[in-house]
């Protein structure tokens, strides 16, 4: 979790993302280009889900499972999340009837 009371800025989020992705993919942090897609480093679908789960914990907000697919670079993702932290935009949600098990029918 975020230890300080200062809201996290884009640089801090990008730094966290870099070390987390390096750990997930078992590659050196300084080999990651922040403008390159996660996939080009071999990030699997399951890694992308883990990343969004860990990000949710880190930022203390619930994030969509598919976040790292929808914003697939450190630059893009950190910019978006910095705005979320500053309260400028809403937390991106999964489209209810897209990736997740949505339901057409009401309760019984």
């Amino acid at each position, binding site marked *: 979790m975020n230890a300080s009371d200062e809201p996290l800025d884009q640089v801090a989020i990008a730094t966290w993302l870099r070390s987390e992705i390096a750990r997930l993919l078992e590659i050196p942090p300084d080999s990651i280009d922040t403008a390159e897609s996660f996939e*080009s*480093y071999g990030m699997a679908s*399951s890694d992308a889900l883990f990343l969004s789960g860990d990000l949710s914990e880190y930022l203390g907000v619930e994030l969509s499972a598919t976040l790292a697919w929808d914003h697939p670079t450190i630059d893009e993702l950190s910019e978006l999340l910095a705005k979320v932290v500053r309260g400028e935009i809403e937390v991106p949600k999964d489209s209810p009837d897209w990736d997740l098990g949505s339901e057409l029918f009401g309760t019984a």
Partner: protein
Amino acid sequence: MTRTTTTPRTCATLPDLVRTRADEAPDRLQYRTADSGGELTVSQVVGHAESVAAGLQGLEAGDRVVLLLPPGGTFAVAFFGVMFAGVVAVPVAPPGRTRLTSGLEPLRRIAADCRPSAVVTTEAMAEAIRPVIEAEQGSLTGVPILAIEDLVRADADAAAFRERGTDDPAYLQYTSGSTSTPRGVVITHGNVTTNAAAIAAAYRTTPEDHAMVWVPPHHDMGLVGGLLTPLTGGFSVTLWSPYQILQSPIRWLESIHEERVTISGGPDFGYRLAADRVEADRVQGLDLRSWRLAFTGAEPISAATIDAFAERFGPAGFDRFAFYPCYGLAETTLMATGGIPGEGARVRGLDRHMLEAEGRAVDTDVDADGTRRLVSCGRPIDADHDLRIVDVDSGLEQAEGTVGEIWFRGPSVAHGYHDDPQSTEVTFRASLDDRTGPFLRTGDLGVVIDGELYVTGRRKDVIVVNGRNIDAHDVEEAVRAVVDAPRKGQTAAISILESDRERFVVVQEVGRGAADEAARIVRDVQGAVARRFGVRADEVLLVRPGSVPTTTSGKIRRAETARLVRAGALTPVEGP
């Protein structure tokens, strides 16, 4: 005390099954969708499915209808709608929202193989997909994309239901994403009603059970285990998306706690993930004592995973004897062998050298060096099913304790692959040397000890990652496309079964001078694999030209490559 629960009646077709259950207990909860909280009783499933069938009028018997839907009650309604219409369902994983053009590739390949008459999806997906398909010329050109929201509004009274028999195909189960030969296993009504009934019996289910399943319904474990076994056994199930569970595995355990779930499970990787990623302090406050049967299958079962999971969740009341290891494949509908509820996972230590070099099972100390720990997958699901271990060269059945290919026969075994008589003949029509048969050749290697099956390896060129089958040739093709031409050497995609897990290794030959660029080549290989399959290799091994063994005709010898990697006999190219 008088027992009022009767054993649910056996049914020969899926329409018969769902209608019988609706007659027996119309208002019983059948499917709860975790994401929306939506609930469907059995009679609601029938009612909505009848509307879907009415909306699908005009199809011929045997026509294929693709189901491109997320997990949940909606999928169940669409599936039974297709059954009532008397046509063949083809469940396919929905594409991701952001990269539709590449995400539709599996669907394109499956459509090229089975030429569907329609695709049923959600309204939102239909709107996004239609322009992509209209802009291309291919297997989906002209195929109507129908929204389930529209289909359920059709007038059910207008439906003309087509009766199907036990030997008619119910759905196609596609098993791997192979480019050259996508294989749709033809599952008949008889196959699936038999297998689901055998699973319910093996699990000793009662209508008081409640299941939770997060394996998606385009996977055999999600469809047969998640949707159809609960219906057969007359108990309810909560359906989750795998995305939700992988993002935050604690949700699996919380769901079991909150809903007093008695039956749940998944492939080995799900258990490993939960043991790895759920922190000890989150385990406090969970009560998992209701969980009586934890099935694990669809990929090699690791004794280490079972230990780690039991250790992590034991404090929350998880009973390690709830583990229920099983073995099966798409070609057997779902389950071929399984254990006994409440007995847990039987782990055996076998001498690795004797097993791999001599093909013989010799017991050793479970903790000794050179021991391979194997988990028993139990016995054939019932007396109607028959398992043999066979020496493939001679066709002779092997004695207990000797490794061979696993052959299987019985009413759960599919009739063949869709529109592929050649592969069907080879895989489904095998005979022993005394002409006993036909048997299904599973392509897996195993050994029977004290009547129980232990899976030891694989003959077929398939790599299993997170319960998903990936064709080795496809991986090699994707990798070769990104490795620079001047140093293009042999590529081998192999799977190594170890005690703790299956390892997916890509071996790539590289020329002199490539050492400086080793890191970049490894990255390119991983990138190609991730883009094409959404998975990552456990290891990319760069080796000198001529290191990968081939046959005289130049074909890669994958099993031999795997043996060399295991033995450390392939020298990696040194990095800078």
